[in-house]
Each structure stands twice: as C-alpha cells, then as structure tokens.
C-alpha cells in the first residue's frame, strides 16, 4: 500500500564504488563515495559518459560494482535477494519495452510482482495499490488503452505508475524527461515533487536539463569522467566554475525572481586545450 514513508533506519549510499564495463578500459566510475539524502530529490548531472547513469544503476543494483559497497537500509545491497531489493526500490529505465497490446492497467498490475508469491492472486491490497498508482500519475483514464497507442509522455507516466504500484521507498529515474515535450516534462517533474513531498519517497534522477535539475532537485551531484566533482544544494553545485569543469561550457547563472530557483544560460563551449575537439 502506498502511504507516507517513514524515514527511520533508511540509509542509501555507496562507498568507494568502482565500475568497469571492460577490463582493459578505464573505469566508468572511479572509486566514488556518495550519500543519498533520505526524503530528498537527488539529481545526478554530467555530460554523456560521465558515469551518472552508471552511478544510478550501481546504487539500484542493476550493475554490480567491481569494488566498493552499496548500503541499502543498513545492509550490503549485494547480499539482498532481487525480491528484497524490489520491495524497497523501483527503477524507471531510459528505454522500456512491452507487448503492443498490453494495456496501461495490465502494465501497472505487473508492479505488484514482488508482493505476490507463485500462486497469489491479485489481492484487494494489490488492487488498491494499483488504483492509487494510476490516480497519482493521472493515468486512470488511460487504463484500458494499449501502451503502444498513447503518447510518449503518457507512456512515461504509465511506467512510473508501475513503479508506484511496486510501492518502493526509493525511486530511481534514468533521464525521465529526455524525450518528452515541455508540458509532459512538467507533468513528470510535478509528479516527482508530489511523490517526494507528500509521500516522502527518496528519489534519485539522472538529468540533462540543468534548469529542471535546479528547480526540482534538493541535492545535486555533478559527475565528470567517472568522478563526483561537486555535491550539495543547487546553489552550491551550479556555479560557473563547476559547469566549466563538468561540461566544458561557459554559462551565466541567475535566480528567477518568481520561482526562486536558479537558471542557467549556457553561452558557449570552451575550446579544448590544444584546439582539438575532445
């Protein structure tokens, strides 16, 4: 059942994490330590290949670290069963696949998988969680529509509803807004805020859009070449100096008076040393 999450005994963090996809290549994540603030929205930012998705997948046990441990609620995540992990954390991937004729409601019901044993039918509790997830994501009216026949924004909301039916405490979203139009970007981010503020979910998001990261993130972690360069509140991390190191860009930052959040205007790329493109 989805209810206000309690924060007692919640811990999520990684110590000395090193991840390598090929043994002969340099590590994608290089001995990094991270503490995810509980009950907050954490944004992982950085250019392509900086290791932000890798960090997200390592924290959510999609990838095993070559070295280092991930601690989930006081236990080494590698020692937990897949089901135990699924009961406390849910992941939205960049790309999803489903049979064309699968309806939104059927998809959301699959979110109850970790709660059901081999012969368990869908219980009243399961139904309740599914309904609540559909309502939270505004996907109720879409329930009978095949997943292939709704817009990509609606699709994203349907997949998030599946995560919510899982009723996890931690939500990991890998670039949830990347392919969406502006209104749906806000739909997704407002939902994220609601899940965090009202339900107390701890949320980790990888994001390319710095303005959305600043507006909806409580805690920002900037990565560059497999290392965490800066971590902290948006105003601590989003500085012209950090953006120069992380993205190789010249930028101007200002605070919008109405929203009170930081905005970043990228100006240009800094020419690489030696004049050759990286």
């Amino acid at each position, binding site marked *: 059942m989805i209810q206000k999450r309690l924060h007692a005994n919640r811990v999520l963090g990684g110590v000395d994490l090193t991840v390598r996809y090929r043994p002969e290549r340099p590590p994608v994540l290089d001995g990094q330590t991270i503490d995810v603030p509980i009950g907050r929205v954490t944004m992982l930012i950085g250019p392509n290949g900086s290791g932000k998705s890798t960090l997200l997948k390592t924290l959510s046990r*999609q990838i095993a670290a070559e070295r280092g441990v991930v601690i989930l609620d006081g236990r080494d995540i590698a020692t937990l*069963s*897949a089901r135990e992990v699924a009961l406390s954390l849910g992941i939205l991937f960049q790309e999803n*696949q489903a*049979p064309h004729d699968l309806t939104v409601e059927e998809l959301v019901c*699959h979110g109850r*998988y970790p709660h059901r044993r081999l012969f368990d039918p869908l219980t009243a509790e399961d139904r309740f969680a599914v309904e609540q997830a559909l309502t939270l994501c505004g996907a109720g009216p879409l329930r009978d529509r095949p997943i292939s026949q709704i817009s990509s924004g609606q699709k994203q909301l349907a997949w998030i509803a599946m995560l919510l039916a899982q009723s996890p405490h931690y939500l990991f979203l890998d670039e949830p807004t990347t392919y969406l139009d502006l209104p749906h970007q806000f739909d997704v981010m407002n939902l994220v805020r609601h899940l965090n503020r009202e339900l107390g979910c701890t949320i980790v998001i990888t994001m390319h859009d710095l303005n959305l990261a600043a507006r909806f993130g409580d805690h920002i972690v900037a990565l560059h070449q497999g290392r965490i360069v800066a971590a902290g509140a948006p105003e601590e991390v989003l500085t012209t100096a950090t953006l120069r190191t992380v993205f190789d860009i010249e930028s101007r930052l200002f605070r919008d008076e109405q929203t009170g959040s930081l905005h970043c205007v990228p100006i240009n790329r800094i020419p690489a040393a030696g004049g050759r493109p990286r």
Partner: protein
Amino acid sequence: MPIMQGADLHGMQSGGLLSAHRSPWRLTALIAVSLLVVCAGGMVQLGAGSYDMSWRQAWEALVDPHLWEHPSRILRLLVGEGMADRLGCERCDTLPTSTLIVWTVRMPRVLVAILVGINLAYSGSILQAVTRNEMADPYLLGVSSGSGLAIAVVFMFLPGLGVHLPLLAMVGGLTAFAVVYAIAWSRGTSPVRLVLAGVIVGAIARSVETAMHYLAQDSSALRDATAWTSGSLIGARWEHVLMVLPWTSVSVIVALCGARYLDILLLGDATAKSLGMSIERVRFLLAATAVLSAASAVAAAGMIGFVGLIVPHMVRGLVGSPHRGLLLGCLVAGPALLIGADAASRLILNPLQLPVGLVTGAIGGAFFLILMRRKRDFGRL
C-alpha cells in the same frame, strides 16, 4: 526452422487480427471452435482407414459396453499384453474387430495428436516469451538438432537400439539444449545469445547429420530417418500416449503457473530484474520445460513443424499477449490444429497417408503468407 531476428513481440502492430481489449468471449469462442474441430477430426480419424467404418460404427466402437463394463480390459489395452498378464487383466479376445481397431490403433493416434499438439503449442508459447522473439519455435534451442542427430546415429550405426528410438531422440534433444545453454552462458545469458547458440548448434548438427545421410549405404535406413524427421502420427500407440502424457502435464502446469512470469519476461530483462525476478533461474526453468515438452513430442511423433510456431501466433491474435489467456487458448487450439491436419493428411490422398508434418508445413506457410499480405509491417525490423 525459420528464425527471424528482430521480428519480436513488440514489432507486431495491434489491430486487424489483434484486438486491444480482452473480451472473454473471444477466448470462449476460440475454445468452442477448437473443441468442435478436435471432436470432428477425432471422429474422422476413428472411422477412416483401411478397415472402413461409418461414423456410427466408430462411435459404437468407442462406447462399446464390452469395454466400459470391464475396466480391466481397458487397462489391458493401455499397458500392453505383458504387463496386463502380470496384473491379471481380463482378456480382450472376444471384442468385435471394429472395437479392437478403434481402441488399439485409432484412438491412440488421436490422443497422441492431442498431447503433441498441446506440447508443441506450449513449447512455442514459452520459447517465444523467453527469447522475446515471435518467430521462435519449439525447436529453436537445439531440440531438432539433437533429436535429428540421435535418430540418424541410431538408424545408420545402431539399428539394434531402434526400439529405444523415442527415448534416444528425447535424450538427444535435451543434450543439445544443454549444449546451447552452455554456449550462450557467460555470467548469465540473454534472449539473443540463446537464439544465436541455437543457430550454431543447429548448423553443426545438421551438417553432421547430412554427412551421415550422404555416406549411408543403406537407403532404407535413410528413408526411415527421413520419415522420423518429417513428423508423423502414423503408428502411434498407447505406449506413445503414456510416454508423452507426463511431460504434457508437467509443461501445462508449469506454464499456467508461470503465466505471470512469462508476462514479466516480455518487459525486458532489466525491468524483470528490477521487479525482483531471479531472471536467470526463471528463464532456465521455463526454457527447460519448453524443451522437455518439445523433446517428448518429437519422441512420440517425430519433428512436426510449424504447429508450435503458428498456434501461439493465432491465439495471440485472438486473445492478446497476456499469457493466461494465451496458454488457455493454446491448450485447445494446439490439438485442434494437429488433429485437423492429421485428418487432412489421411483424407487428401486416401487411401495413401501423408506424414502430418507435411500438412502442418503447408498450413503454416499459407498462414504466414496471409499474415504477411494483410499486415504491412509484419516481420518489421
């Protein structure tokens, strides 16, 4: 067997044959029609043959009170003379000829068709989900290669083991599956690796088999081996029924219990894992079930093609991709197709009989032709 990469389950457009809504009446109608076909085809099979009898005679033989009032006579027919004598069953000498023919020759053939139809349809459904490839069929993971090779070896070199051929064919198929899985495994496996490993083993086994046929001196052995590999229900006996039945039961139970797991597998490995599925264990168990099911079907009836490929296709088109409905549909549609094809194989060139595998091949080809003409994006990459 056709293996078309990329024609995956997600590439199929809904619409036309496929319906978005799951209306229970479609499944009900499918079950009703299939049962009708099974009964009609079954009656044709009971009546037709060199000892010709009318439908009425066939029916009377089926419900012959000489048997039904003496259950131990039925037992004798089921377990064979030797075992029956030991059990002290009543003798069947006094039975009318028509009853004997129906009960010893024709009914087993119908029952084997039902069981093999279920096995192939279930095996195909499971493997299509496990490999997330709509063109997957029961022989994808090495069953045909292993069984084919075992059959060739027995006919060419070890004719003395001929009586154990069904068992050896099954063992061959399962061995090949083990080899396929071992090749595909590297810290876990994936649908694509499994399919590729199946292709590799298939290619090698087929060349060895062809080489053996080529070098064979005895042309009658060659002919027997070909008959086996083209799949036929001619000569099906009670022993075949009893041999397949346990594996049919196992695969039906496992598949129906695992319907939800099959659904989750279609969401992709990453999502399945994130939902808490022990994906390698589930995939192996389901694949092994499918392969056992296919191998036992081969043992009883040889390699009947296309049934395992088109039945899940047709049923999915009618009731949608969720596996509970799909598998329930396959439970009756598989037997319906195979019995229908077997009745056709007997009637087309009557009194000559064709191996049913040839008929299913023709039906399968026609089915895909229609599908391809009607749907522009069929098999889209």
